[in-house]
């Protein structure tokens, strides 16, 4: 840091894709507001459990299934086992946000690399790679999860892997579809004419131009992943009681929506708010990353 690199300081600062994108993202008001909300939500989920006086599996025998109430200290009320809903919502948020981020990241990385290579290289490679995707689509997902569980035991990382492993298929197909159309464009031809190596073309020219559609699809993958987790939990393959997740809480709440609506409303609001934030951040990112839109 002390020795000034003469080359980089004297050269004109190139605007990298990411620096540029960040500046443009900061100008998008909806995306900034959504980011602030999402960051606060994440902080609440991480720090919040230390501030709530009830444990997530603690049964308050004098307050079973009570509606939200200041006097009893249960701000979100309690469920039919007398457990504090606020605490459970915060704990559930930890699981759901983590599943959403990790599984989406897995599907993002595999999906982009796989789809871009298949689409760009084309021909026999594309044919083979896409038939493998077809085969994976048809695999009985539940048996896949059961098998993973038998082989590696039940743990949360496994759920991430399993969910990520099915979600990259859609991403790969979408990325490939876009690549097929992109690779005939003039700037790709120019790069090919200059003798740019294949991988460099994919990395420098194909992928940045795909990001718009990819970001939009990511904002659709996050809710999907969070809900698949709740489906797995419902089947007894995901997070286990007394641990919980937003999907599981919403699922439980939906069973009692007429007798104890707060059990549905609070977790559902947290879940929906998070998904809306991701959605607006995604749109902002899409605008910011669009290389044509300057």
């Amino acid at each position, binding site marked *: 840091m002390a020795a000034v690199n003469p080359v980089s300081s004297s050269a004109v600062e190139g605007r990298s894709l990411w620096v540029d994108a960040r500046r443009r993202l900061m100008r998008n008001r909806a995306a900034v507001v959504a980011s602030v909300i999402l960051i606060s939500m994440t902080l609440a989920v991480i720090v919040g459990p230390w501030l709530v006086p009830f444990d997530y599996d603690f049964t308050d025998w004098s307050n079973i299934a009570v509606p939200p109430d200041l006097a009893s200290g249960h701000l979100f009320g309690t469920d039919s086992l007398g457990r504090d809903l606020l605490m459970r919502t915060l704990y559930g948020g930890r699981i759901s946000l983590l599943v959403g981020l990790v599984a989406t990241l897995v599907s993002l990385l595999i999906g982009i690399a796989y789809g871009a290579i298949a689409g760009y290289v084309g021909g026999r490679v594309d044919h083979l790679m896409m038939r493998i995707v077809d085969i994976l*689509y048809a695999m009985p997902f539940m048996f896949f999860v059961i098998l993973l569980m038998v082989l590696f035991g039940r743990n949360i990382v496994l759920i991430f892997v399993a969910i990520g492993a099915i979600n990259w298929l859609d991403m790969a197909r979408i990325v490939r579809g876009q690549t097929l159309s992109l690779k005939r464009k003039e700037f790709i031809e120019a790069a090919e004419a200059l003798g740019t190596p294949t991988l460099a073309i994919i990395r420098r020219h194909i992928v940045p131009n795909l990001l718009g559609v990819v970001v939009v699809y990511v904002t659709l993958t996050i809710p999907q992943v969070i809900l698949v987790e709740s489906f797995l939990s419902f089947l007894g393959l995901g997070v286990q009681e007394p641990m919980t997740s937003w999907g599981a809480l919403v699922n439980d709440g939906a069973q009692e*929506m007429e007798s104890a609506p707060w059990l549905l409303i609070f977790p559902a609001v947290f879940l929906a708010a998070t998904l809306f934030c991701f959605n607006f951040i995604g749109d902002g990112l899409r605008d910011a990353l669009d290389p044509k839109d300057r």
Partner: protein
Amino acid sequence: MLKFALKRFLGAWPTLLIMIAIAFFMIRVAPGGPFDSERKLPPEIEARMLQAYHLDEPLYQQFGRYLAGLLKGDFGPSFQYKEYSVSELVMAGFPVSLRLGGLAMLLALVVGVSAGTIAALRQNTRTDYAVMAVSMTGISIPNFVMAPLLILFFAVFLGWLPAGGLGDGSAANLVLPVISLALPQIAYISRLTRGSMIEVLHSNFIRTARAKGLPERLVILRHAIKPALLPVVSYLGPATAAIITGSVVIEQIFGVPGLGRFFVQGALNRDYTLVLGVVIFYGVLIIVFNFFVDMIYALLDPRVKY
């Protein structure tokens, strides 16, 4: 084009075979069996049952027997629904799921593409935010919450529509399940359409079309919509295959006898033949739809060549 189609047709068979083989062995390796129950069967009876279904033979022999059956169009008997063969179960459930899923996808396509296009044309305005917020409810509020809410409002509170079942199969019975199925798809399709439409609207050929004075409506309909639909079409292949093979959640809530429940029940009951049957059925649909998707790419975007 014809050469491409022929190549894909030939390529479909090994794909299908590998699909069947992996599914067959994966299901067998998983612990549990079709005749496990709370009450243990007497060993001699269990042995007889295994023998009757040829489950006592070595795996490779069973696989051969299964493939030979498939060649004759025989998917085997269901272990759980003992009076029925797998083909009968699938053929009973599929028309129901196809009708619901097909209508839902059609609805989602019309609403989703329109909403996405409107939002893209009014990018980052209030209209855009409003349209996108509404369409996002389809995935922000999960299916198993949305469907009961719809029933509560339209069937119980307003009394306009029946709460469940297919009844005499009239249109009124289909409305709520079709809407519940379509809502998440609307979210996907509208978001994908909006994103790629914005990108397409910034291309040079759109600027040219506008510059030569073409009315905005024609710019959209004649030039922008086709390339903008590319990612939607990619999504549509697998999504259509999934939706017309039923949704276990929607079927349960509305009491509809579709195909979706077999995927989950079959797996939970270790009904080997039933699971394989629906896997093969679904796999064929995936292969066929993804083939059509690849053909449609070339129609939508003249740059795409295989």
